[in-house]
């Protein structure tokens, strides 16, 4: 298996980045190749749209691809911090990569703003003054789904998620709110594409519903195979399993499915309406929740830069914490552990013309904070 190791080594050869002088330097490490690329591309595009609309000078963004590999992400982070001297890092999609990068980055006095991953460890015991999560703590959307399941009268759920930090947070979050029985609980491999074995277990379990967290290509595979299997139990999921990128590849199989999200394109506020229109104009596709998170992250940074220089860390931190920017989610504020306190909605998958998308049908949880805030001492 020497060949495989060499493959990994060769993949780690880093891309070259352009170095230039700027007042504020932001390093974005995100997934731009491989199976998770759609998520990283959306975060990047949302982020850069906000930077571009703002148009100020003296903000430079360096973007690199982590290939969804923790070792690659760590290398890029080290180089960005040590030789390129970035002030702020952002961009990581996957929780296992965030766990590898964030503690080391914040320990070196760099700010890290997460546009996606929100592992429970970083919200609780290992929280850090320089770490802000602009998206959600991982459990949040799943908690809302658990609450929705109670309301919908589901009593015997079969739950599954990939075996990595966000997957464990997902099922923990669902179980925290859900009051019914569990017909089964499965952890699948991260990046798994064949779910025949799991679907057979669902069929045999006597469940009344399925809850699954499978972001990116994993969700596409699962939904297509589920639709073809003849199992017709209702499916509930977090928005990650039904984002704008996934729905087009799944097609009719996803129609009518309920899912939970902190954002949707039909959220009624000015910032969001402008964001949806300008994103479509620039990139020719509907924004996903990942794009909205990237957009909010950039606008948060810009709002803090209006008030303080990054070099004045205390002032800049206070400016970030204040979160005085027009979030596309409407109301947005940070809790004491620098994680959002926000509304989470229930959405339904619909078809608009030829495009599959979501519409909000209810508010799942209002002003919801995460369960780990109490463990954070800072």
């Amino acid at each position, binding site marked *: 298996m020497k060949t495989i190791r060499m*493959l990994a080594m060769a993949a780690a050869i880093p891309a070259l980045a352009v170095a230039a002088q700027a007042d504020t330097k932001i390093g974005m490490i995100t997934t731009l190749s491989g199976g998770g690329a759609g998520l990283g591309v959306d975060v990047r595009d949302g982020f850069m749209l906000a930077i571009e609309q703002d148009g100020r000078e003296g903000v430079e963004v360096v973007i690199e691809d982590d290939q969804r590999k923790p070792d690659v992400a760590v290398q890029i982070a080290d180089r960005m911090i040590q030789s390129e001297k970035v002030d702020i890092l952002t961009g990581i999609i996957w929780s296992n990569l965030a766990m590898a990068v964030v503690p080391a980055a914040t320990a070196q006095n760099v700010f890290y703003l997460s546009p996606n991953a929100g592992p429970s460890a970083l919200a609780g015991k290992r929280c850090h003054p320089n770490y802000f999560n602009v998206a959600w703590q991982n459990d949040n959307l799943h908690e809302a789904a658990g609450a929705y399941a109670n309301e919908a009268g589901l009593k015997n759920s079969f739950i599954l998620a990939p075996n990595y930090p966000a997957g464990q947070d997902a099922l923990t979050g669902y179980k925290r709110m859900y009051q019914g029985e569990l017909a089964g609980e499965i952890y699948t491999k991260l990046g798994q594409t064949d779910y025949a074995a799991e679907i057979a277990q669902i069929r045999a379990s006597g469940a009344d519903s399925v809850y699954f967290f499978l972001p990116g290509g994993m969700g596409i595979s699962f939904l297509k195979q589920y639709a073809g299997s003849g199992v017709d139990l209702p499916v509930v999921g977090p928005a990650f399993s039904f984002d704008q990128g996934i729905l087009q590849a799944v097609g009719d199989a996803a129609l009518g499915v309920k899912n939970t999200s902190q954002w949707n394109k039909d959220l009624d506020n000015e910032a969001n309406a402008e964001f949806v229109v300008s994103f479509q104009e620039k990139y020719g596709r509907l924004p996903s929740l990942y794009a909205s998170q990237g957009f909010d992250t950039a606008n948060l940074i810009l709002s803090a830069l209006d008030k303080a220089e990054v070099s004045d860390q205390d002032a800049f931190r206070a400016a970030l914490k204040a979160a005085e920017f027009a979030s596309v989610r409407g109301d947005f504020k940070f809790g004491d552990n620098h994680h959002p306190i926000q509304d989470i909605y229930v959405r339904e998958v619909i078809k608009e013309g030829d495009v599959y998308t979501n519409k909000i049908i209810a508010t799942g949880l209002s002003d919801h904070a995460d369960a780990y805030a109490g463990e954070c001492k800072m």
Partner: protein
Amino acid sequence: MTYILVLEQILNGLQLGMMLFLMAAGLTLVFGVMGLINLAHGSLYMVGAFAAAAVAGWTGSFLLALIASLAAAAAAGALMELVVIRRLYRRDHLDQVLATFALILIFSEGTRWLFGSFPLFLDVPSYLSGPVSLPGGIQYPLYRLTIILIGLAIAAGLFLLIARTRIGIQIRAGEADREMIAALGVDISKLYTLVFALGAALAGLAGALVGAIQSVQVGMGEPVLILAFVVIVIGGIGSIKGALAGALLVGMTDTLGGVFLPQLFTLFMDPASAASAGASLASMLIYILMAAILLVRPSGLYGGSA
């Protein structure tokens, strides 16, 4: 745990095995006949899936899509052999690995450039969708059953090709002694291109068949490639029979291990940690299997003296 579930899981293992066989057959032929490690085999799988998705999108016909996947992957394979691979036969394995790894990057980024970063839509045709009832009351997706049958048919076809035809004789002779068959007047470079294109076509077909029930996206070939390497190492490099045995073994182990290990663990752990620990061990299982087989038979199940 009912016997229906066990039977269904065995069918799932068989289906995964058949898909792996399509990948591994080409890989093992290329390695056996030309002594070449081709890391870019997974890219041909991806090419097949994308060609199928594109053609299915234009024409709406799944059959045409499958034909397109065969043709596109075979063409890409032949081109790859003529332009790059041909120069690598006399080099050592490290050079081959580096060059074919470069090909992975070129194919991946080329595909991204052509089709974008978002997954493509390719679905099972309506006449193959939905479940069928098998004897014993098993509900099994018709499409997966079709994959098993296609795999079996191709395995039979390959055995006939290798054992009964003139090309087969040349391939076997090429494996045994490539100078000698060149001396006997066989156009060895044409034979190599042919074998390479054949292997590529099989990988492309696997990509298209699997793409319909998974997601058609850039980088979809690499995870399968790693499994295919495990298969040919277990089966014995260069042996089609070994590839079939190895593929079925890996398919069964992976599927059944993933299902039954977590359940075994619940006997002495609480369900949540059993699910997590069982899943972790299950993903290691095929590599443990490979190590165990290599301990007993260092050149694989059907390998010659390597």
